[in-house]
């Protein structure tokens, strides 16, 4: 009995409708030699994440430049899925990204996309090793606009502007927003580096969003009578302690 390979399932993400049309035409051209099926498309990263929770394509073609969330950030969030798809980036002109892709042997296609190159990339896609989070982090020229967690088969986005503070707890970091807390598996020091413009470190284990700081309060410890500064966050009753080494930030905010 012949072994019949299932068609390759492909998902297309591009913010420009003509670009998606063109890509689908080329994919249809590939179909005669490489059985494949386009199972969906999205015009931005958020929409893509929503749809990809239901669909599980083998390959996702992602445009790098998109509004709201660029392609590389999307790829990072997709890595959170239990069975992440292979990713092929597409870009019209992006000297920086292209150099980095070459360096890390990441699949990319230059627009206008040639049929032959698309065909090659798709043939290799099943065997390709998806880029690691570290490499994607390096590729991202700007901080991510969202953090993300994986929850019941889907990727939940936490917009970075909603994050009030981040606290390291053993293996995890808890992300605190006004409504709830999330656990993410990332290093606080990496988050601090990535979002240096938005967060300030107040303690070895805590980063606070600068915009969320409402004020500072001096608190006296009832046990030993020592006093130290704490941060008051907008809308939260909890006071976050500032470590001795970080006391200077109280002055820098006044």
């Amino acid at each position, binding site marked *: 009995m012949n072994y019949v390979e299932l068609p390759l399932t492909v998902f297309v993400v591009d*913010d*420009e*409708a*003509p*670009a998606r*049309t*063109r890509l689908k*035409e080329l994919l249809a051209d590939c179909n005669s030699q490489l059985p494949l099926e386009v199972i969906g498309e999205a*015009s*931005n990263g958020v929409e893509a994440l929503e749809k990809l929770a239901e669909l599980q394509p083998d390959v996702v073609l992602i445009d790098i*430049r998109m*509004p*709201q969330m660029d392609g590389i950030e999307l790829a990072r969030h997709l890595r959170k899925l239990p069975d992440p798809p292979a990713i092929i980036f597409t870009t*019209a*002109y992006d000297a920086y990204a292209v150099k980095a892709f070459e360096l890390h042997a990441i699949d990319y296609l230059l*627009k*206008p996309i040639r049929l032959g190159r698309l065909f090659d990339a798709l043939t290799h896609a099943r065997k390709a090793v998806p880029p690691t989070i570290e490499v994607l982090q390096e590729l991202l*020229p*700007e901080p991510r*606009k969202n953090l993300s967690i994986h929850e019941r088969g889907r990727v939940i986005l936490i*917009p*970075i*502007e909603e994050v009030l503070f981040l606290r390291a707890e053993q293996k995890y970091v808890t992300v605190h927003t006004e409504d709830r807390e999330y656990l993410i598996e990332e290093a606080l020091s990496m988050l601090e580096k990535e979002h240096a413009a938005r967060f300030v470190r107040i303690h070895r284990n805590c980063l606070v969003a600068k915009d969320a700081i409402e004020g500072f309060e001096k608190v006296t410890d009832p046990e030993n009578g020592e006093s130290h500064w704490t941060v008051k966050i907008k809308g939260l009753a909890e006071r976050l302690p500032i470590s001795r080494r970080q006391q200077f930030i109280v002055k820098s905010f006044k």
Partner: protein
Amino acid sequence: MPTSQIIRQNPSYDVLPDFRSLGVLLRTLVSCNAAALVVALMRADNWSGVLRDFVQTGAALQPVLLGCLLALYVLSPALARLSYRRGVAVVLAVVAVIVLAAVEAGGELYISRYEQADLALARYLVGTVGLASALLFYFRLRAIALSPSIYKARVQALQARIRPHFLFNCINTVLSLVRSDPRRAETALEDMSDLFRMAMAQDRELVPLRDEIELSRRYLALEKLRLGDRLQFHWHQAEIPDDAMVPALILQPLLENAVYHGIEPLPDGGVIDVLLERKGGSIQIDVSNPNSKPAYRRRGNKLALGNIRERLDLLFDIEAQYRVDEAADYYRVRILMPYVKEEPS
């Protein structure tokens, strides 16, 4: 109103300054009065003497100065037709004649009864003609200093115009239309070739505004194909004279900037407002676009805008204004420049 020819259309710096430009008038007024102050400082022996002398010299100077400026303003088109050397000779002669006329009419104001009339007259002539020569020399030096910048700014504008992003975007759009809608693909290619032809054929600093409008509209049509409903634009045009001339590539880069920074970062797009208006002796160009949330904002140098600003400065000096208004929800560039008429050919 300056004509296009006078505004250094000619790359050579062997041209007289434009005596009708505000910049030249102001520079002349200020430097002549500064010279009067220097003379006062040298002649007087105490501070009140300096003031008295400055006021006296000023009283004698202003009628001559204003007379010269008025005469040169009137003679300006005729002077522009002369060779540089002849032009200089005529300017100096005009100054001398006006000084003689002023001394003749002014009497006691210029020559007191205690001094020898012919010596005083010689002093006035040497002083004013000398000052006029110095000013002409200064304007020539300034033109020499600025002409490489004008050339450089123009080259930069051309380079900025053919942005790789734009070229590849266009090609992609056309490719996506080839199979599904060959007719629109044809139109898009025609628009594209017109656009690049117009953009590359710029060998003059000033082009008819109607050409720049045409170029900009073709540009928007191409972007509209790519961005679809995300790109909306409102185009208002009021009393734009048909013979108005503007610096080449002044409007299209503003629109490209608005698309790149204002529309593309927004998932749902937005509206670009273009307003072209004649206001008396000026042409006003307004381009505004939505300002995206800082989180969505694109990085990117404001090279194109810097270049426009630089060319306006070089071409129109202080007569052009360039302003950026930025608020939470919009970003607007406003340019006000003199209405320059096309030379009838």
